[in-house]
């Protein structure tokens, strides 16, 4: 056990699974880390953000495959390799690039098991970074997990910390279905205690990071940390919050969400993806349909406006949910008074 960054935790999960299982391979743009160059350096950077650093050196070019900048071809190749016996982990770099290869994911990988009558399995992981907050502008900052969650046949994982990232990525690699594994790019330097040994966190089991009686907060990925901070601040004001990190949007642990809402009667959902048809709307619908009688106040969503992610720092800050915005939403739901209609 030692302190590891989000980046190191992901690297360690890849390394340990590659050591354990020779069928695990990596594919993607620059995953071998800038091979060649004027100095002839190999594995100089380990990918654009250094996540795969050292893996090319250990596992070589037959297992760490640098690909051309052609998402449709290598994501398709990874899906084909998965369905014929390998366990590829393909990296899409920015999730925004999925537009170039969505057919391979949505119509091919996600459908194999179903369309081959359960006889095919597709142990494919697609890693990608998502999220705003790093001045990466509109084409490199989206949080597209609702898009994948919408497609039956895909599993969608959003780790909220280094510990979560390692255990969930190991589960993703061992899973026999296609898994979209989304890493918030602002979190790579976040550190916490992470066991040195491999471990697997199952999909579809939410994690409660705070427990309180007044309000349930559901948050995803980087938003979990913000929700925790808001909960800690609110606790000092006497408002107890339960914070739920669902870990995976598909499968979704509806049971835990409904149980917690039944206890607290108030729900705030924090989601940094675009506000229409996102996880906040999905969970709001779930609760409105199945726990309506538990609710003591309207469901509140802390979400960005329906615009592209702005580049300018002040606008990007304004765009994203924040600790303050979560606190305000919780306070608003606490202050709600039911007016009896005659």
């Amino acid at each position, binding site marked *: 056990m030692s302190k590891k960054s989000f980046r190191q935790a992901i690297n360690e999960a890849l390394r340990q699974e590659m050591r354990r299982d020779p069928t695990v391979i990596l594919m993607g743009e620059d995953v071998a880390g800038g091979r060649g160059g004027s100095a002839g350096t190999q594995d100089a950077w380990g990918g654009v953000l250094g996540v795969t650093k050292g893996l090319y050196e250990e596992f070589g070019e037959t297992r760490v495959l640098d690909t051309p900048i052609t998402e449709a071809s290598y994501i398709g190749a990874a899906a084909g390799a998965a369905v014929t016996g390998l366990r590829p982990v393909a990296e899409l770099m920015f999730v925004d690039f999925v537009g170039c290869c969505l057919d391979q994911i949505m119509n091919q990988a996600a459908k194999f098991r179903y369309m081959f009558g359960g006889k095919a399995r597709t142990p494919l992981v697609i890693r990608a970074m998502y999220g705003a907050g790093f001045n990466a502008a509109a084409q490199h900052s989206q949080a597209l997990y609702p898009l994948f969650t919408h497609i039956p046949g895909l599993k969608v994982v959003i780790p909220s910390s280094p510990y979560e990232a390692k255990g969930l990525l190991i589960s993703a690699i061992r899973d026999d279905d296609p898994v979209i594994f989304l890493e918030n790019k602002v979190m*790579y330097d976040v550190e916490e205690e992470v*066991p040195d040994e491999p*471990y697997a966190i*199952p999909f579809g089991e939410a994690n409660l990071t705070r*427990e309180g009686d007044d309000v349930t907060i559901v948050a995803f990925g980087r938003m979990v940390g913000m929700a925790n901070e808001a909960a800690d601040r609110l606790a000092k004001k006497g408002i107890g919050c339960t914070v739920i990190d669902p870990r995976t949007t598909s499968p979704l642990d509806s049971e835990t969400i409904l149980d917690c809402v039944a206890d607290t009667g108030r729900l705030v959902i924090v989601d940094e993806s675009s506000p229409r048809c996102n996880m906040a709307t999905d969970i709001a619908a779930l609760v409105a349909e199945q726990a309506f009688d538990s609710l003591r106040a309207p469901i509140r969503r802390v979400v960005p406006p329906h615009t592209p992610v702005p580049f300018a720092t002040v606008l990007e800050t304004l765009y994203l949910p924040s600790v303050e915005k979560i606190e305000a939403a919780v306070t608003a739901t606490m202050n709600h008074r039911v007016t009896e209609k005659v």
Partner: protein
Amino acid sequence: MTPDITPITMPKFGLAMTEGKIAGWLVEPGTQVTAGEELVDIETSKITNTFESPVAGLLRRHVAANGEMLPVGALIGIVADAAVADADIDAFITRFQADFAAASDQADGAEAADEPVMMQVGAHSLRVHDRGTGDGTPLVLIHGFGGDLKNWMLNHAALAHGRRVIAFDLPGHGGSSKDVGPGTLAFFADVTAQLLAHLDLSRVHVMGHSLGGGIALTLACTQPALVASLTLIAPAGLGPQINMDFINGFIEADCVRGVQDVLKYLVHDKALIGRRMADDVLRYKRLDGAEAALRKVAAACFPDGKQGDDLRFVLASADMPVTLIWGQADEILPVAQADGLPGSVIRHILPAIGHMPQLESATAVNEVVEAFIGHEVATA
């Protein structure tokens, strides 16, 4: 922070940047700069980039010289109005540097001293927490089935006065490596002896809980010279019965709720079992090899749903002093197993306490142990 003084700090250009080098100042002190004007070239491990002034004003100081390598957030320059006195700028820099150093110390200090460490003992990698100093005979704590050194969290520091108190994770448990060999009490007693040899300890008080009590008894039998005294908390080995619903439930539980339900067998006051405790157990159980290790230990120690080792004979012939602590309401190992032992065994039966008195009744247990081994030290 003085409003008239603006600190210029080492920027963070990329996600991976933790430090940067002043490749060259582009503006000399005494120059009026506009916001967005190029101030200084910063070299990172990835790229050299020009840092633009975040504000308009008079550049008063270069705090960092060309060629200096500094962490992100470190002070590199000062922009302040001409009216601000040099002495005020000096004071500002002193204060900033002190705060910045304190903040980085705090970040580093987290991994200081009093923490468990990993030790290679023979073929096993063991997590060991060695606390306290003094001349008293050291005390070694052996946890039970599925437990780890944190089972002693309410006892470890309290007993570590005037003596070393060493808690460790058994193989297959907690942060230790997961190979449990044959999974028998004799195996674990042997690893304990190896750890003591590794720590250069030739004689220790041994306190064992549950399965750890059985291990302590085995150690007292095989290596009596090592054992100055035995403190047994609801130990294994004194009767055949064991609650296999707990053992099997603990092995099989794979979600928070399931673990929480199983852990309730451990205590009389069920409210003690919170979600955090279940989370901790799940973190351990989800490590590769943990479940297999538990299955192997259960098969070796509890074959056919009963305890396989009868260690009553050890107490009949033991030369060392023995104290026995048992919760009256134990739901794992029945308290009746504390009956019929030699008169020399000091018995403490705690009413309305379950299988983990060291947790549920920590103060009473600590007092009993302190009096027992403290006395041994006095008469030694």
